[in-house]
């Protein structure tokens, strides 16, 4: 009997690990209000190919340095079946501060979500800002990590960007190919666990 239980447990554990490997968000219907007060279901795709979540922080210099590139990416994929969200992870940032920050850094006009309780952070497993998660069909996290390889380490910026991982992932998805590199380590400010 014990053996059976142990086996069941092991099988379940293995399945759990496998599920984690595949990495889908646990609740595809997760609903959250954006800054404009509209209900958003960032993981629920309708006719789109993917949803892109930019995790940012208003006082993280690396996150801020990416503002122009975030704007360019949104612009470049404007006509493509991709949805974009800006997700502020700082628990204490106010609506006014987010609006002001968006204006100051000319962030694109896409839905802004204040993830004060880190529901989205936890759902996709984001750990730093800036970090990006690309969600495909059925909540599959098809890409998570850096926007590009501008930073090799904290304080070590490249002179030349050579890998544009997010763009590569989007190109692949739009052409119905597998994402070439599905996970990268994002470099930036750690998302505080104590919120």
């Amino acid at each position, binding site marked *: 009997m014990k053996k059976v239980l142990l086996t069941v447990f092991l099988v379940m554990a293995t399945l759990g690990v496998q599920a984690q490997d595949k990495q889908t968000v646990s609740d595809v219907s997760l609903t959250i209000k954006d800054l404009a007060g509209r209900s958003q279901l960032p993981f629920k795709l309708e006719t789109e190919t993917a949803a892109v979540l930019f995790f940012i922080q208003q*006082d*993280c*210099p690396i996150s*801020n*340095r*990416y*503002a*122009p*590139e975030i704007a360019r990416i949104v612009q470049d994929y404007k006509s493509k079946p991709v949805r974009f969200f800006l997700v502020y992870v700082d628990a204490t940032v106010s609506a006014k501060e987010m609006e002001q920050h968006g204006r*100051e*850094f*000319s962030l694109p006009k896409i839905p802004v979500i204040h993830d004060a309780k880190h529901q989205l952070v936890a759902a996709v497993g984001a750990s730093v800002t800036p970090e990006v998660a690309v969600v495909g069909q059925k909540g599959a996290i098809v890409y998570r990590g850096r926007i590009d390889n501008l930073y*090799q*380490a*904290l*304080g*070590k*910026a*490249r*002179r*030349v960007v*050579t890998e544009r991982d997010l763009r590569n992932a989007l190109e692949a998805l739009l052409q119905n190919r597998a994402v070439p590199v599905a996970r990268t380590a994002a470099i930036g*400010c*750690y998302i*505080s*666990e*104590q919120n």
Partner: protein
Amino acid sequence: MKIRILVSIFALGALSLALYGGQRAEGGSVTFADHVAPIIFNNCTSCHRPGEAAPFVLMNYADVQKRGKLIAAVTQSRQMPPWKADAGDVEFKHERRLTAAQIETIQRWAATGMHEGNPAKLPPLPKFADGWQLGKPDLIVKMSEAFTVPADGPDIYQNFALPLNLPEDKWVRAIEFRPGARTVVHHSLFFSDATGEARKLDAADPQPGFSGGMAFTGQRFAARFGLGGQANDASATNPGASPTGSLGGSLGGWAVGAQARVMPEGLAYFLPKGSDLVLASHFHPSGKVEKEISTVGVYFADKPPTKAFTGIQLPPLFGVFAGLDIPAGAKEYTIEDSFVLPVDVKAFGTGAHAHYIGKTMHLKATLPNGQEKKLLWINDWDFAWQDQYQFKDFVALPKGTRLDVKITYDNTAGNPRNPSSPPRRVKWGEGSFDEMGSMSLIVVAANEADMPALQGAIRNHVRGAFTKRRSSASR
């Protein structure tokens, strides 16, 4: 019964052990109030406070706890506080290095729950001077128009010529630099220019200031001394010091986080009448457009200095004669230069210059008795963090001491700072795809009467480098 007693005794023992253990952990635990706050307040808060250069403030428990993991990471990697020199054998003034013990304390605090401790034990924040750190300057000059730093793109190096309109020669003890847009101004090097050359370049450039070269010095040397090799003659006309000699009219510099440096007592930079102050500033885009107007405070010496000083640059003139030719893919291309001191000197400052693919910069003194002193030891050169270092005390180096400089370059694709992708062959030049390489030691002669002999030897060294280069080039 017996068993029960035994069990009770055992349980009691276990309980007391647990209590004891718990107490010990508590007594040895790291808290913000007791251990971490003094480190943060004394090493970080001078910049991490409102209105200063750092992107966020670190002034209380909540601020530091929120960034705890980041602080632990960047202090361990020594990215912060910004100080590129490794521990050598001499101490620097205003050194911003944490000790290994301080770094370990932050690590333990971050790993053990970042406890606040007893807020009553929190040390007070240091008193930070508002405005000019060195008091009211004798002369305040300001950029006449704003320089626009774009939101995005590579780092920018721009020079600005600021007229000082000095009717007479002056001696400068310190220069304090105050950036307007603090998040984008990374560093600024100061030079005097009595030739009017910088002013012309400034006027010719449609933008405020003028670009060109990685630093004003490089350009100036290339233009004026590039092939002539006669660098050190200006000293003859300024008997008090040799300011435009191998220091190239340098007046020091400022980097984000640095305190204004005052020259040691009795020493001053020479500032000829009518000269302009040139700021060679480094900007890095922050994600939004910024407009920079720098303000500079100049502090004059009351009287001419009592001693002259000079720079010993190895290899001379930023390595123009060092034959730099770095193949694409070279991991550890090395240049070296040595100089034997002809007289007793006392060193008080040091610095280094290379561009992006410079990797290690080592300056070592070997005294006649065989004792070795690491004077400046940079193992992870970063062009963005050029600093000018002042020793805490004068470093006595007797006649016969050999100075050895070794500079290495990493021209592989694995070097994130490589401006070329894929890497390409790199030679000496002032552009951002070119390289330079030299280290400097700033010294006074222990006996003032020995100064001409020292300067003569430096001149000979420059000539020697030039001759060697010419003969190897013609071969």
